[in-house]
């Protein structure tokens, strides 16, 4: 009797377990490729769309005010054989780009193998209705983000029309007349870089056609060469770096004339100078920092480097005085970081200067993990793109940063709102992000953008400080760009 009872209990138990098991099995027929939470197609593989490993971030600023030129359309041209390898964010080759945001970001064909034996060289020129840049040579042998600040000059004449008083160590004769007032003086542009051993002196704009002659160099000990560069927009006849400047050319009205000199005793260093920036505590972070290299003869070379710590940035090429190769290298902090003191090097060639970034006080480290998707496409995108942020209500300069594979760590104030903009194909896409977790729901519900939808946003404390995880679904317009 007991045995029979045990058998029945066992049988009942087995029966219940099996029924429970089979009932639980019904979920096995749920399609795992459909997201359980959203019902969207699930993302299987995340692709870094950062095909472009060498990027040029070109910022167009007014030489006088340093403000971005974002109130008018600027055409940026890239000149030279290697410029044919430039591509936009969609992979389309091109050498002319137009922007009204004061910002152009382009890439270099990733199939071109970069080597220090074969430097890639091109010249950047920018022109708008009211501004012109000094043509600037860009030369590089390594990949990475190259920050180029193009300082543009207003194309309105200055008060003086007498060329001889503007500092060239040689005579400039136009249409047979020395210091001809028809060769309109614009301004001193010695702060602009040619990107070569030559230095700009002044910008002129002839109002009539005529022949220009440069001669009578006053100091052939200090200067090795001289002449003028000519920018003739829309027609043949330009002479721009890295070509040798001309001492005798025919000009037409509307040309831009850049007087220039080359000092003696300059040595070209192909191996460049490495600026390394890292966090002293080894933590993550990103920022864009201005640098200044001061040579022994007082000449300077400036620029900026974009870093995702730790990062080395090669400044190349370097032209230093043969009599003294020593340099002082300075890197300047931004809204996020203070940077360690200047570094003095015995030689600028092949050396490295290391700097440490320290977060400014009262800022919290916030790590952003952003994954982008396109509607009905089962692939996530982890973009490596540049961006800028600024606290809501602030009017100062934006702070640059860079996503690397969709991740970046920024130093931001807690419980604040930040305006952010990321740049896709030369266009800034703007949004506001709170660092206050309480505001997240409102942020999600109040979306109005037609260009993207934030599908998920989490703000969680962790060992980094806070981590903001965001899934953004782009609209069709941006997705078309990414295809």
């Amino acid at each position: 009797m007991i045995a029979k009872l045990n058998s029945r209990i066992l049988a009942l138990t087995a029966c219940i377990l099996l029924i429970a098991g089979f009932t639980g099995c019904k979920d096995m027929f749920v399609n795992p490729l459909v997201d359980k939470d959203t019902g969207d197609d699930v993302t299987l593989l995340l692709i870094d769309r950062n095909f472009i490993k060498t990027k040029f971030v070109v910022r167009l600023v007014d030489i006088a005010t340093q403000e971005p030129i974002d109130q008018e359309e600027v055409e940026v041209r890239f000149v030279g054989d290697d410029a044919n390898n430039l591509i936009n964010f969609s992979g389309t080759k091109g050498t002319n780009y137009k922007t009204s945001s004061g910002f152009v970001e382009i890439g270099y064909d990733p199939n071109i193998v970069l080597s220090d034996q074969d430097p890639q060289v091109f010249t950047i020129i920018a022109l708008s209705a009211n501004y012109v840049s000094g043509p600037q040579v860009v030369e590089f042998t390594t990949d990475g983000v190259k920050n180029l600040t193009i300082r543009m000059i207003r194309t309105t004449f200055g008060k003086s029309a007498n060329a001889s008083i503007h500092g060239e160590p040689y005579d400039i004769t136009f249409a047979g007349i020395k210091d001809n007032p028809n060769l309109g003086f614009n301004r001193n542009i010695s702060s602009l870089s040619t990107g070569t051993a030559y230095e700009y002196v002044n910008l002129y704009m002839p109002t009539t056609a005529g022949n220009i002659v440069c001669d009578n160099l006053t100091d052939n000990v200090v200067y090795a060469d001289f002449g003028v560069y000519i920018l003739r927009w829309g027609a043949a006849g330009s002479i721009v770096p890295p070509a040798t400047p001309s001492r005798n050319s025919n000009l037409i009205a509307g040309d831009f004339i850049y007087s220039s000199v080359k000092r003696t005793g300059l040595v070209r260093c192909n191996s460049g100078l490495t600026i390394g920036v890292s966090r002293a505590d080894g933590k993550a972070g990103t920022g864009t920092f201005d640098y200044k290299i001061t040579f022994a003869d007082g000449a300077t070379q400036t620029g900026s480097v974009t870093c995702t710590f730790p990062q080395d940035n090669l400044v190349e090429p370097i032209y230093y005085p043969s009599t003294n190769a020593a340099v002082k290298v300075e890197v300047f902090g931004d809204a996020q970081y203070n940077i360690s003191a200047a570094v003095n090097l015995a030689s600028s060639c092949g050396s490295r200067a290391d700097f440490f970034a320290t977060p400014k006080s009262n800022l919290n480290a916030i790590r952003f993990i952003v994954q982008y998707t396109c509607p009905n496409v089962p692939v996530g995108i982890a973009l490596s793109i540049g961006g800028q942020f600024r606290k809501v209500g602030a009017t100062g300069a934006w702070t640059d940063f860079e996503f690397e594979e969709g991740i970046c760590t920024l130093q931001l104030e807690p419980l604040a709102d930040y305006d952010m903009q990321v740049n896709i194909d030369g266009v800034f896409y703007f949004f506001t992000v709170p660092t206050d977790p309480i505001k997240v729901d409102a942020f999600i519900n109040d979306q109005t953008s037609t260009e993207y939808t934030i599908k998920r946003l989490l703000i969680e404390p962790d060992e980094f400080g806070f981590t903001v995880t965001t899934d953004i679904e782009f609209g069709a317009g941006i997705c078309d760009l990414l295809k």
Partner: protein
Amino acid sequence: MRTVKIVCLFCLLPIIGINNLSAQSRFTPGIGLAIKASTNGLGGDVVYNFHQKMSLRLGYEQLGYKTDFVFEEQGIKYATNLAFKTGSISLLFDYYLAKYIFVTAGVGYNLFHADVNGTADSYIQFGDIQIPKEKIGTFNIQVDPSLKVSPYLGVGFGRTLGLKKKLGFAFQLGAIYQGSPNLTIQSTGLLSPTSNPDQAQDIKLENQISQYSVYPVLKLSLSYKILSF
């Protein structure tokens, strides 16, 4: 639903009184060997039938399957290889509710493992340029049970070792509880974010397959008694 009804019916049979195992002649314990084929693999058991209603089985089974295929995602073709292995080293206890109906419970060391390797097999046309497949990279996704030592429960029909005859035959229906599958992802090249811990893609995909915690088992076994005591 129909399956559930059939299972219930089989379970209820002994309760409604067909269990008349007692009338048999004197039982002789024995040891035998069995070969088996199941959804969990091919293998064999050593069966020790130590009581008229009870037996122990120590067994091994394994099934492997490999296939190559190409799948395409967002215009990129991936040459993919799936290597799938299942099986277990198990120790099971059978309890006979009736002469030819038994329940089985036990544990096994779960050998389940799936390995998916993919290599980009086409370039990406990116505007005017092509991104070669070598730069797109590779991925490897491995699936393992979270419970390597997995419990098993099932019902069977027949005998895992013949009661009087040398030969025995059994059909079993059961399930291995192996827990939610764990994913391990490795990737290279442009696919690197897939395995970046910060992107937590493995956790997202694990959530998508968490329902596969039970591995269903259908098993046929044929045994031969080699020793009787």
